[in-house]
């Protein structure tokens, strides 16, 4: 295809992506080093006879508005927002490092800083949910593959539902069930014989609930991928293993698993990125008191009456950096695949 024809075909989609993905990323970067203008203050000296003169400071509304209209982006403040308490909290971290006698104490102090608390949850969530999704998806795929042909379709239909459902809606559906008055909530109270047990009240239980949601939502994705992979498993390989007297576990271990390995790494990489941006379940579970994520911080900064664009932008930049780190292996893999194909 000629370059000029390519440009004609590609320009609409390129334009959309440049305008609404590339520019916003730049805009976020710029905003994260700017803060809203301070109000312009004027000092007015009023002198009254006998009392004397007083200097009053007031906001010059007009000048402030002019300044804001002239430069809506605000004033340049460098990396100040990144280092403030709501983000990387550099001075607080230094302070707690020097004042702590051991690591335990240091981490406890870190846990009081919002950014590190959110990172703690996000990383715990990401690195627990991802392997669980792979394991559950693999087990279900093996299981469904062994079912009778006729009911496979039905099982696949129901399996797709948690994955296809709107994340917020899926989270709400689970949340209402684990409510202390909901069916699962009552069941848990009954199992532990504690009528006051509430998943919403404790941080640990809330994290577990969120992780359960994460696995429930994403396991079907892993299942579908692995299930499709199982269909391409060459039957003669399995038969050869059976003739050699391999037990069922050995067949899975030495034949099925190696065959699915590329898919396992694919699912794991996608899941790492998806789980890192965990957001909707925190809203759906109303869990922000116990668990926050970077995405939730951005949402929280942007919502409400005061839109804290600078703070949200700084968190966005930090999130983008995190996602990029997780993305590097995927990029390497894509590059390698392409180069191999090109050979």
């Amino acid at each position, binding site marked *: *295809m000629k370059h000029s024809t390519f440009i004609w075909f590609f320009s609409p989609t390129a334009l959309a992506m440049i305008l609404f993905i590339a520019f916003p990323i730049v805009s976020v970067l710029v905003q994260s080093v700017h803060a809203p203008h301070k109000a312009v203050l004027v000092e007015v000296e009023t002198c009254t006879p006998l009392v004397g003169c007083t200097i009053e400071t007031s906001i010059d509304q007009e000048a402030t508005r002019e300044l804001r209209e002239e430069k809506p982006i605000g004033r340049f403040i460098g990396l100040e927002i990144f280092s403030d308490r709501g983000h990387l909290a550099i001075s607080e971290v230094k302070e707690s490092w020097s004042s702590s006698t051991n690591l335990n104490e240091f981490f406890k102090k870190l846990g009081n800083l919002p950014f590190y608390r959110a990172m703690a949850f996000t990383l715990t969530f990401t690195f627990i949910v991802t392997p669980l999704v792979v394991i559950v998806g693999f087990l279900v795929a093996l299981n469904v593959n062994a079912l009778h042909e006729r009911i496979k379709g039905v099982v696949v*239909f129901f399996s797709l539902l948690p994955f296809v459902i709107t994340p917020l809606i899926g989270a709400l559906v689970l949340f209402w069930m684990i409510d202390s008055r909901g069916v699962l909530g009552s069941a848990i109270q009954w199992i532990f014989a504690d009528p006051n047990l509430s998943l919403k009240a404790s941080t640990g239980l809330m994290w577990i609930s969120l992780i359960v949601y994460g696995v429930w939502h994403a396991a079907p994705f892993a299942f579908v991928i692995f299930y499709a992979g199982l269909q391409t498993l060459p039957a003669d390989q399995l038969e050869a293993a059976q003739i050699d007297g391999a037990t069922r576990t050995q067949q899975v271990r030495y034949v099925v698993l190696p065959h699915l390995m590329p898919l396992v790494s694919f699912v794991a990489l996608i899941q790492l990125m998806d789980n890192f941006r965990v957001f909707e379940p925190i809203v759906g579970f109303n869990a922000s008191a116990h668990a926050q994520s970077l995405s939730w911080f951005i949402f929280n900064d942007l919502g409400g009456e005061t839109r804290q664009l600078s703070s949200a932008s700084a968190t966005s930049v930090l999130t983008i950096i995190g996602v990029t780190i997780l993305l590097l292996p995927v990029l390497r893999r894509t590059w390698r695949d392409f180069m191999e194909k090109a050979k």
Partner: protein
Amino acid sequence: MTLASKRRSVSLRIIIYIFAALWLLIAAFPFVWTFWGSFKVELDFFSVANWTNALTGERTIAEYGQPFTDAGYEGAWIKEEFWRNVINTFIVCFFVVCTSLTIGTLGGYALSRSGYRYTLILLIAALIFRAMPPITLVSGYMLPFFEWNVWGILPTTIIVLVAINQPFTLWMLHSFFQNIPKELDESAKVDGCSQFKAFRLVIIPVMWPGVITTGLFSFLLAYNDFAITSMLLSEDNRTMVPQIAAFLGTTYTEGNVMFAVAAVVSAAAPLFILVMFFQRQIVSGLTAGAVKG
């Protein structure tokens, strides 16, 4: 696999079916339960007295004389005017799917037919864009949209969702077009067609399976989005998902939780129908992504 199934023992077969039943329960029970409960009153759905009330609807009978009531749906759809949000959602989804498929098909086709190095760079760029959480982009939209006075309206959200959709659409359609033999449009070009005419006459008639699959995923992205729609739409223009989130804030205080439950069931229903009719396409779309990496 016939050999394996013949040798499967009875006990193993029982375990397999128990496990399958358990998985079905985990995957489907929350939906069945919520659907059933949406026709009850709040005191049955969230029952302090006895969880079986949610099944039998004891309080619902006491209040309405029958075990089922559509009070939640009436409250959500009529009193809270949820139908407006439903219409908004379908407007947004329709235009997002149409626009992103139109420009995505052209772009994906070009990527699959151009052998130059820059196609790889463009695909990698699309992959990076795809990985960006949409909510990180929102703070970049706010200021310009306020300045141009386009914040809060449906067209803005549609364009943003189309753009966010593009990387995925490009990847998906790129791999579909690669499976259509190049010889088809090459021979049309030899016969004197321009590239565009070859695309129109030769490729368009055979591309529909791929386009439909990609369209399904575009629809799901637009339909399921919460981050963009909740941030970029004003109160009057909300789609279903941000409206449900807004319900939560108000209904928990007013005691109208059943409105939210009814709204959730209403918003989930179209997705069920979608999976029912397009199960095969969704599965093939998911696996196409996996195979291509």
